[in-house]
């Protein structure tokens, strides 16, 4: 059973609406990742954090996407103005020391933008 908790499991939004999803990483894991997995199973890296600091992010997330990992609160990924192409499974993962260690994935938030 995954110890990375993602909420909600399903999210339905209209185009232009804001979509927000949350992630509680496994206890003691300082590194958190967000990936987008599309219907073809392709993974797209979005952003990663060490504690509250952004380590790396793709250009896309600097525009409509925003993410944060505040101390003592769940991490979150927010899409300011959802588009149909944003429909995907959003996976949060955590690890002890980055990607050269095992990533523990949550069950994901399945976003459908109508």
């Amino acid at each position: 059973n995954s110890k990375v908790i993602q909420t909600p499991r399903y999210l339905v939004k209209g185009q232009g609406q804001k979509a927000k999803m949350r992630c509680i990483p496994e206890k003691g894991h300082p590194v958190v990742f967000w990936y987008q997995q599309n219907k073809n199973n392709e993974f797209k890296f979005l952003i990663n954090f060490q504690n509250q600091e952004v380590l790396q992010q793709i250009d896309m997330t600097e525009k409509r996407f925003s993410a944060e990992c505040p101390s003592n609160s769940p991490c979150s990924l927010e899409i300011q103005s959802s588009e149909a192409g944003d429909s995907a499974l959003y996976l949060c993962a955590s690890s002890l020391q980055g990607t050269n260690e095992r990533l523990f994935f949550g069950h994901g938030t399945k976003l459908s933008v109508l």
Partner: protein
Amino acid sequence: QQQVRQSPQSLTVWEGETAILNCSYEDSTFDYFPWYWQFPRESPALLIAIRPVSNKKEDGRFTIFFNKREKKLSLHITDSQPGDSATYFCAANTGGLSGKLTFGEGTQVTVIS
């Protein structure tokens, strides 16, 4: 640009047979190659991983063969079981805390009993 490629896209084998999944990569700086598997409606989970200092990594029925010169690796599943039916993802990373892990497109394996 797809830096990690997998083939075949899907694979069906009989129970007891060996399934062979292929993976190739572009970036010669990649130095960590995990395989993740994902069951329907489940999250991906680490199956087995290898670093280029080795050309083979074995864990039970799962073995990675690694060819650094050709930038290729393969996952062999011996004595395949129906419970092995899943999508298998090859991934690669350049290492370090800020590495982002690049995934291949996946191979969907179906084991028929």
